[in-house]
């Protein structure tokens, strides 16, 4: 067993072993010269990794989204976006016309027709991995994408990394995904908690003043912790002080015991580092406690929700989120070419505009496909290299960099505000855009979160 390992490593180090030479010759790569393989564009002569090489005239993508459980509606929207992306990859249209630079042809990926399989993550790490494994082992997918919470994304990212399958994260906002848990085979287009803090804090101090005392309620898991730290760090840079922070168990459905604490403090801003059902409940509870109409320290008590989504806003209700500030990765009201064409094609297909989850999933699929075209192969190490440090525009967030050091997209972020019930015109504009914070402002040093991407060829 050990000699197999050493053969493998020597294979990648020197680039040539007897086996790969034979393979290369048989594949007809006559023009290959004696440069190490990882420098060559067309590395299809390399050994099998994951489900590479792709056999037949079709290539299969795996869409693993929550179909049951609390995030099922978000998962449904992600799936709509994936199906639309497949349609566009095969037939042209959508962001294929706006993404730049792009080698996408509208004729599948590398001439192969794109098909897909779906799975249910159940918002359960173990279930999501078993589902991803089905796609990989049985359905022979070349890439897996999806997910609607960080724990699930991280769990799948590790699995895919082991098996040599590229994982394009769906909606995950924890710093860990591209921080301490980053993986060579995992990529995130969505933004993260750190970027939220950076984007939101200046707007907060502009709106509410520099002399504010914040109280945090924080969901007690990795995402919550990173969100809280980022918010505290960047609001304090704006001159705010932090009165307190209570960790709330993830399973909490009634937050009144924690809100009693807030009422007892001197805080005049309540920061809810909650997502999904947690956020809907804590915000609704806070409103019930009269916190939207309360005065503290001679100022209006304000509530902040760092991470917003349309479904959450809808779940909490218009009256409750009216005026509340937070951030989003994308919104269908954006006016750039990429967003417009995406919103139009999505609305034509399904009858209503897409959510930010749909957007990030759609873009991820296109970016993967484009990377394959640029690499000229499905061979994962080459595709990864094509994605790393890829700069692009026309996907809805301005000029974007897929940073090579941690596989995090650095792009514009939106500061959003809840629309008042009277200003709302449809079921889809619960939130309005207050500010588009540019990529340079939210950029950060990838080294601060640690972690290792690991090798291009999985052990």
């Amino acid at each position, binding site marked *: 067993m050990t000699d197999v390992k050493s053969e493998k490593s020597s294979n990648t180090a020197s680039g040539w072993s007897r086996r790969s030479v034979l393979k290369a010759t048989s594949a007809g790569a006559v023009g290959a010269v004696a440069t190490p393989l990882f420098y060559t564009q067309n590395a299809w002569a390399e050994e099998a990794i994951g489900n590479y090489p792709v056999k037949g005239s079709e290539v299969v993508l795996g869409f693993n989204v929550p179909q*049951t459980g609390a995030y*099922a509606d978000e998962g449904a929207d992600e799936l709509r976006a994936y199906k639309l992306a497949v349609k566009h990859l095969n037939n042209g249209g959508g962001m294929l016309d706006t993404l730049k630079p792009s080698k996408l042809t509208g004729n599948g990926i590398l001439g192969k027709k794109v098909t897909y399989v779906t799975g249910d993550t159940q918002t359960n790490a173990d279930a999501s991995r078993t589902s991803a494994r089905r796609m990989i082992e049985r359905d022979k997918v070349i890439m897996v994408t999806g997910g609607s919470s960080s724990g699930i994304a991280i769990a799948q990212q590790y699995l895919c990394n082991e098996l040599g399958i590229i994982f394009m994260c769906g909606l995950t906002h924890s710093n860990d995904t591209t921080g301490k848990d980053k993986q060579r085979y995992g990529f995130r287009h969505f933004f993260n908690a750190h970027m939220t803090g950076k984007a939101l804090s200046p707007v907060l101090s502009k709106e509410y003043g520099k002399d504010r005392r914040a109280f945090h309620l924080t969901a007690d898991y990795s995402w919550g912790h990173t969100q809280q730290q980022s918010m505290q760090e960047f609001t304090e840079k704006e001159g705010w002080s932090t009165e307190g922070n209570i960790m709330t168990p993830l*399973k909490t459905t009634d937050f*009144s015991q924690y809100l*009693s*604490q807030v009422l007892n403090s001197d805080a005049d801003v309540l920061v809810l580092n909650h997502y999904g059902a947690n956020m809907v409940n804590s915000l609704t509870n806070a409103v019930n406690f009269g916190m939207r109409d309360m005065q503290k320290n001679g100022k209006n008590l304000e509530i902040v929700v760092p991470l917003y989504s349309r479904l959450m806003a*809808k779940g909490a*209700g218009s*009256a409750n989120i009216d005026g509340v500030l937070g951030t989003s990765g994308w919104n269908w009201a954006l006016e750039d070419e990429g967003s417009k064409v995406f919103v139009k094609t999505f609305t034509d297909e399904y009858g209503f505009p897409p959510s930010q989850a749909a957007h990030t999933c759609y873009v991820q699929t296109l970016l993967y496909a484009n990377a394959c075209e640029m690499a000229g192969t499905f061979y994962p190490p080459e595709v990864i290299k094509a994605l790393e440090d890829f700069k692009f525009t026309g996907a809805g967030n301005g000029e974007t960099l897929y940073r090579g050091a941690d596989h995090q997209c650095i792009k514009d972020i939106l500061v959003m505000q809840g629309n008042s019930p009277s200003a709302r015109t449809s079921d889809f504009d619960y939130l309005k855009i207050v500010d588009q914070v540019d990529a340079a402002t939210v950029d950060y040093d990838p080294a601060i979160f640690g972690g290792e991407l690991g090798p291009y060829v999985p052990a």
Partner: protein
Amino acid sequence: MDMTLNAFTLYILTGLQLGSIFVLIALGLTLIFGTLGVVNFAHGALYLIAIYLAVSINNALGFGLALILVPPILFVFGVLMERGLIQRFYDRPHTDQILVTFGLAIVIQELLKWVFGANNIPFAIPSWGNGILMLHDYLPFLDGFVVYPKWRLILVVVSIVTVTAVFALLHLTRFGLVIRAGMRDAEMMQFLGVNINRRFMIVFGLGSMIAGIAGVFGGPVTQVSPEVGMHLLVPSFLVVVIGGMGSLGGAVIAGILIGMAQSFTAPYINLNTVIIYLITVVILLVRPRGLLGAKGVFE
């Protein structure tokens, strides 16, 4: 953290209102447990039906109609459920009861998700119950500014009224006498020629109806999403068992106890997450049948 009188008052109120939800849900559960001997894993799902009905009627026709319609609908649903399904399981092992009611709970949850989506539906509090109560205006010992949401205080009152009504029904009426006797020894009642079957059906309906009342008033507090039923399942079972199987009084005490424990441990996350299990373990180890459980029931 030294505790001021203000903080203490808020803790107590929060404990009471957290407990009220538990009590309302556990009340129906323990009634069904105690009388029929059925482990009903679908009780959370009954509450789920109630909140979805309540929010739909409330948003379309107003709260008044929701209050009038939901409990009777739940009563009928409970009766149908007992006749159609549960009565086949009186003599079956608890494991079978768990499987069939858990299956039913999943079916109800998934059907509601199919119709209403997985996302939360906002449940607007009627205007007369909205807003906050200035407690410092009423309680002179409070210092300065102490407020509490009106609706949550209403919830406490509703739960007190419901508990009182159920107690009155069981202790002051002939129907109640038979039921209480049935809880002790159903077989003996059959021998005495009492048609216990029909009464069991009514008891199940009653338990379901209490879930209906809980749904109408609890909906704005627990919110309305398909997950709510399963979330409440474990805590309400713990309340019933801590209180003692089939003991209404026990369920009330246990519900308030759990509510208080959650409220007072709020600042200490590590204790807060385990406190209700810790209480369960300690109570069941010290008192074999929970606080007020009868001998021989469910042992």
